[in-house]
């Protein structure tokens, strides 16, 4: 067992460059002769473009080009696409309006792209952009999700009457109605899942470059999935064929979903590089990130649960309006549908579930996947319902959950998901013990003596990671397959390069992937390099999102390693002159059973390239293998998070007294990194529950468009977290791993709101539970009612 092998908290290899300032993010790259792009954005939420006057801007110092949507159209550059087709209940396909990279006739949100100004320096581009004069005919906007579908509301796209993209459903409506009819208790909640801005600290950036010699384009970009970007830019947008388009995603400073999508700026910078004959660089400032990065969440939901006399949940009924913003972003249609409703069974054995979702256009920034993507929304629905149901029935919320947990696996839920493995009761028991749940009432009494309100809240979440298999997601409307690729190049000297279609933007793949390779080949981790993020090096890949890189990306590496070992075994057998079946490979050494002959992995690698000791008609020289891995099922991580809070009713401030997380991610590759993922996810979930909210005013202006106005969690807003794991290995992949990247963000909001409502003694609080909101909610009910 290698000290850097699977299961070890190996310190990260990529850290050296990051802690010394040697990382290479897109904005750090400068190309010879580069010019700078600044986008002219709509100041209005909804308006017709009557005229764009660029005459004055063109004369400004340093300007090398100004382009509008007409220029893109003249070059037959297509619009941005949504890659997941959703069908409505009546079988009709979703009603999507066009999404040009630069608006032509109409702008649909404040921040929408109208023109690009390219100049010798950034300051010159900024100055010239100020001189572009756009004559707008302002239209009334449809801003509020709750109202956008009502008759008489302003219409965003002619294709989508009543701003309705789809009216989708999942589950057995009749079975649910029958269950509700016989229920002895029903719980009903109106829930808002607040709109968030992902806010990776690295703003998005893009550099487009055109090489006259080869006729090829290169795009450096802040992407979680450069190959998908290349495919879309090539096949749908028509910038260049894939063999003439190289996409490089170098070091990327966090994504959280927001860097999955193909954005207008990437299209325009790449295309414009040829137009101006220079590399074109664009770096978002933070206010642009707020305005034009895809946002997350934004649901309004009515959720009901039906219980029988024993406290068994019989059915759930969920009706959700999901805000999709002004245009359909790359995967936006799937987030509130197939990434949401299939998780509504939570960890519970629920015989019948019916969910309806309306996807709605509004004059706001596009909404797409943000850490968890649909699954935090589902967990918030299920875990708020379960908690409130337990309270209404006078049952202990932990026991109520245990009473309803799924106990047998595999388990087919009524909403597509087939859970393969889990031990929910074990997580709950371990978490309750770690959180000293038994001692809570004494702590609550102590807080009460000091005039404080103490509460405890549970969230028993389920997640689905590594969405797959490709055929199944295709049948649900996905435009892509969700496999992953890997290539192992063994050099003659025994060093190894691993080319992966996954992309690391904080996850530590250069360490974890190398741990797997080091262990399986029995070579020091220093001999292994992990390469990703460049379509000229890695042939194809699907990228990193949905906590898929371990379960899918590493499984592809595992499969490629099988092939490497198989071929190396053959070569070793020829070299040692023994039958192949007699050769074992352990800890980096091939040994011939029944003899004292051995060869190290590096020696076999050398022989593979020297090719003197085997018949090359039978075995090809070289040692390089590739694999595409398509999972047979999703993975289903689960866990229990317990939040304990204390509220000061005089200030409304909620203090997190204790955070206990017990997660089941299956086997762990690097526990240190897994714990870090939980910490980060929980922090984002706490941010959602307590602090963060993207707010548009009635005119469609984003009033929270800076860090002065949008409350990001800071160190002093958070506590330390107690994180522990249980392990039921995933049966559907060779590593037994499940995925850990989103769990915290999925679990945390419900845990925190359940804790706050437990402290307050009523359910009437929405996210974010800011001090002002909690202060109002913590006052005696009669005072609130009197207002």
């Amino acid at each position, binding site marked *: 067992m290698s000290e850097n092998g699977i299961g070890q908290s190996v310190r990260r290899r990529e850290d050296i460059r990051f*802690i010394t300032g040697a990382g290479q993010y897109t904005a750090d790259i400068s190309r010879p002769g580069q010019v700078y792009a600044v986008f002219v954005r709509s100041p209005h939420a909804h308006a017709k473009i009557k005229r764009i006057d660029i005459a004055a801007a063109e004369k400004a110092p340093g300007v090398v080009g100004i382009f509008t949507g007409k220029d893109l159209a003249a070059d037959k550059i297509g619009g941005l696409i949504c890659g997941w087709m959703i069908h409505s209940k009546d079988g009709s396909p979703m009603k999507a309006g066009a999404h040009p990279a630069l608006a032509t006739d109409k702008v649909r949100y404040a921040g929408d792209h109208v023109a690009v100004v390219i100049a010798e320096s950034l300051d010159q581009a900024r100055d010239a952009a100020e001189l572009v004069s756009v004559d707008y005919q302002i239209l009334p906007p449809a801003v509020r999700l709750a109202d956008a579908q009502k008759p008489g509301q302003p219409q965003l796209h002619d294709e989508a009457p009543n701003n309705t993209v789809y009216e989708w459903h999942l589950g057995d409506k009749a079975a649910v109605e029958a269950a509700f009819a016989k229920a002895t208790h029903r719980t009903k909640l109106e829930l808002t899942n607040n709109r968030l801005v992902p806010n990776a600290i690295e703003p998005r950036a893009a550099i487009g470059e055109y090489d006259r010699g080869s006729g090829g384009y290169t795009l450096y970009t802040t992407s979680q999935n450069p190959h998908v970007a290349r495919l879309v830019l090539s096949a749908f947008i028509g910038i260049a064929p894939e063999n003439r388009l190289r996409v490089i995603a170098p070091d990327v400073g966090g994504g959280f979903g927001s860097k999955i999508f193909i954005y207008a700026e990437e299209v325009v910078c790449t295309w414009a590089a040829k137009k101006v004959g220079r590399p074109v660089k664009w770096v978002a400032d933070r206010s642009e990130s707020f305005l034009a990065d895809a946002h997350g969440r934004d649901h309004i939901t009515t959720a009901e649960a039906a219980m029988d006399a024993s406290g068994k949940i019989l059915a759930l009924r969920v009706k959700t309006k999901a805000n999709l913003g002004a245009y359909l972003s790359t995967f936006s249609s799937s987030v509130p549908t197939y990434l949401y409703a299939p998780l509504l069974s939570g960890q519970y054995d629920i015989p019948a579930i019916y969910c309806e979702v309306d996807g709605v256009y509004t004059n706001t920034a596009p909404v797409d996947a943000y850490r968890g993507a649909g699954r935090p929304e589902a967990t918030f629905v299920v875990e708020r319902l379960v908690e409130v149901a337990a309270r209404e029935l006078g049952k202990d919320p932990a026991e109520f959950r245990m009473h309803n947990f799924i106990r047998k696996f595999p388990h087919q839920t009524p909403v597509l998901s087939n859970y393969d493995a889990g031990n929910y009761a074990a997580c709950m028991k371990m978490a309750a013990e770690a959180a000293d749940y038994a001692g809570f009432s004494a702590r609550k009494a102590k807080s009460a003596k000091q005039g404080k309100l103490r509460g405890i809240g549970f969230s028993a979440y389920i997640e689905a990671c590594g969405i797959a298999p490709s055929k199944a997601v295709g049948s649900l409307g996905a435009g892509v397959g969700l496999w992953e690729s890997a290539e192992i190049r063994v050099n003659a000297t025994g060093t190894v390069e691993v080319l992966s279609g996954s992309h690391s933007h904080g996850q530590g793949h250069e360490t974890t992937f190398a741990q797997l390779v080091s262990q399986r080949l029995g070579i020091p981790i220093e001999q292994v390099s992990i390469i990703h993020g460049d379509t000229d090096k890695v042939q194809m890949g699907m990228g990193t999102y949905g906590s898929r890189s371990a379960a899918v990306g590493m499984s592809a590496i595992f499969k490629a390693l099988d092939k490497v070992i198989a071929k190396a075994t053959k070569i070793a057998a020829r070299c040692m002159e023994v039958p192949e079946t007699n050769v074992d490979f352990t800890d980096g050494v091939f040994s011939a059973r029944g003899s004292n002959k051995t060869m190290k992995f590096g020696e076999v690698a050398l022989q593979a390239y020297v090719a003197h000791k085997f018949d090359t008609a039978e075995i090809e020289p070289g040692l390089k293998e590739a694999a595409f891995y398509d999972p047979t099922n999703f993975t289903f991580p689960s866990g229990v998070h317990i939040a304990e809070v204390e509220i000061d009713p005089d200030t409304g401030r909620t203090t997190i007294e204790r955070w206990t997380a017990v997660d089941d991610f299956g086997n762990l590759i690097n526990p240190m990194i897994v714990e870090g993922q939980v910490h*980060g996810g929980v922090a984002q979930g706490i941010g959602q529950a307590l602090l963060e909210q993207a707010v548009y005013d009635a005119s469609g202006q984003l009033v929270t468009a800076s860090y002065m106005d949008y409350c990001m969690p800071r160190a002093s807003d958070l506590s330390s977290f107690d994180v522990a794991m249980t392990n039921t290995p995933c049966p559907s992949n060779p590593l037994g791993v499940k995925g850990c990247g989103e769990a915290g963000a999925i679990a945390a909001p419900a845990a925190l709101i359940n804790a706050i409502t437990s402290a307050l003694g009523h359910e009437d609080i929405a996210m974010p539970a800011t001090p002002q909101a909690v202060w109002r909610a913590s006052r005696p009910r009669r005072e609130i009612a009197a207002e």
Partner: protein
Amino acid sequence: MATIAMTVNGKAVRADVEPRTLLAQFIRDQLRLTGTHVGCDTSQCGACVVHLDGKAVKSCTVLALSCEGKRVTTIEGLGEPERLHPMQEAFREHHALQCGYCTPGMIMSAVDLVQRKGSRLDEKTIREELDGNLCRCTGYHNIVRAVAAGAQAMAAQAMRQAS
């Protein structure tokens, strides 16, 4: 254009800059020291923190011209891969970074914190003092631990150098 001279990471530099050039732009674009990052426009995120005459400043809100004759230390000047500063080492040891984008500013702020408040830092102090540095990846849990450990390691190093 105006001419400016300052010392950056121990080296004298002299350059022509536009008067509106920010220190962050000067360091990144003209000196090509890209370890100093820019994450916001409002002096909130702290990714751009450098030391100016030994004190932490947000280089996105300092005009380059105002640094005439001053001493600037960036993350590149703090330590090198073979000779890491104790705070850099502590960030790696405690897994206090994920994407790495906020890290240079976070480390520069942490070193400044130790210089101001000493090496015995409790969790509350660290959390409050890091209020000017945003991290979206780590939830700060490991950063807090790294800063506490880094502070101790800085003190130990100072002791070794004194003896």
